[in-house]
């Protein structure tokens, strides 16, 4: 929080725009420990984010479980999710977080391509399944419409 606030001011680097809906995000910062109950939620948020997307694991607790070697804390989110940049420290200083975002920018610049070839492997669609026209026809048939009906227009 302090990173985005007045003193450290993340907007100097053009990265201050926070979107709280995963569908508008391209970077997820996992701050703090992730426990059993939260991990499925976190994975779902990650799956909801549109491509291209990156993940920063912020703090020792997210990277490795940190001091919390207990029954409920996941020992590092990278066991279950992809992570691009790890930030050490518990908690990291704001400067460290800013540096990690700059590092991520450098990583994208060095490895990225204009036509996003690197994401070609990711083929599964995101979010709700595609609109199925067959399903619409079946629903309309159940409701008494006939396909032969001249007024019937399956798309509208």
């Amino acid at each position, binding site marked *: 929080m302090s990173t985005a*606030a007045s003193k450290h001011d993340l907007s100097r680097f053009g990265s201050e725009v*926070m979107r709280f809906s995963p569908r508008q995000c391209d970077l997820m910062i996992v701050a703090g420990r992730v426990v059993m109950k939260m991990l499925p939620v976190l994975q779902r948020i990650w799956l909801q984010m549109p491509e291209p997307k990156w993940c920063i694991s912020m703090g020792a607790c997210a990277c490795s479980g940190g001091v919390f070697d207990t029954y409920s804390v996941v020992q590092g989110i990278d066991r279950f999710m992809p992570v691009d940049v790890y930030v050490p420290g518990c908690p990291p200083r704001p400067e460290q977080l800013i540096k990690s975002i700059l590092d991520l920018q450098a990583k994208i610049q060095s490895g990225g391509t204009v036509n996003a070839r690197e994401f070609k492997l990711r083929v599964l669609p995101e979010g709700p399944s595609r609109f199925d026209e067959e399903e619409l026809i079946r629903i309309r048939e159940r409701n008494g419409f006939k396909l032969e009906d001249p007024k019937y227009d399956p798309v509208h």
Partner: protein
Amino acid sequence: MPLELIDDPSLGSDKREGLWTLNFGPQHPATHTTLRLVLQLDGEMVIDAEPDIGFLHSGFEKLGEVLDFNQYVTIVDRMNYISPLANEIAWHHSVEKLLGIELTPRCKYIRTIFAELMRIHDHLLCTGTCVLDLGGATAFMYAFNEREAIYEICERASGQRFHTSYTRVGGLLYDVTDDWVDMVKKYCKNFPKAFRDFEGLVMKNRIFVERTRDVGVLSKEDAIAGGATGPVARASGVVRDLRRDEPYLAYDELDFDVCASQGGDCYARFQVRMMEMLESIKIIEQAIDKLPSGPIYASGTGKETIPDKREVYRSIEGLIHHFEGIMPNRQMASPKDSVYAATESPNGELGYYIVGDGSFRAYRARTRPPSLLHFSLFARMMRGCMLSDVVAVLGSINIIAAELDR
């Protein structure tokens, strides 16, 4: 609150038609951390709210049974992470009560100053972020300016700006220096001006007042029976402050007022927090003037406390004493008994119930988190409010998920 309920909550769920359910969280900007609410809505009116917590439950209390009294302070730190030192002070207050250690005057005063700095720290974040959630980003920036100054004070004293792990059984990690005293004095001098800016921006803001007044009302009876403490209870008219009623540290030697209000709504809770910040500055000013010199470690009769660093490096007795304090198998025994001790943390009564079993670690280290009790009252506060008030009420009771779930 003035609106009348259309729906009758006493009816069974099958008869309550027209309600719809809204899932709020666990990842939502206004929850700051992770908690989930399942709201029953009639249009935009909240009929019922069922909180679902535990998204940050990390087994603190189990760790308290594994780590010794000094080690556990690092875990306690991470409990209410917006005022970490207040938790450390509360933890070691309980431990010292169990072991029967009397602190030195200097240590008492330094801890008092830190406890009050943490109160300001916590209240600034609580009010600042709540105003941010209600749509005003400026106040948040003002609040964080002041918080950064407190971070620097913590860093000067302990070497860490956030999770300081500064207290030890019967003492403190390091003694404070003269320039730390100057920093605190300078902070006390600058704070009232910044506070006036902040208060003017928030408390007389028409939109803020309209959105918080008569919203989320908690009656005095509910506050008492439901276990509310701290600013939440004081805003509902329960005039109880552990600093006055069960004085610990140096509070009985300092002069301060207990801030309370009668309203019980969100605005009253903010008022109490605002006034407490000024009272805290008053306490810090007195304490820093009275700051006695002398050792920070209680020498004690036994080996419960670690000796002062100067003693460790300059005498063989001190070195042996330090060694015995650090080695897990050489430490002093705690009494085979249990104790409950509480301090007035920024959020309310933060207590620890410790059971000693003769070793230097707790057999059971129970935390009494104020957030848990406050959040269990949330459904009661919320009934009859509008959906947009959820954010205001959540902000005003200052729910910290790490403390809530432990």
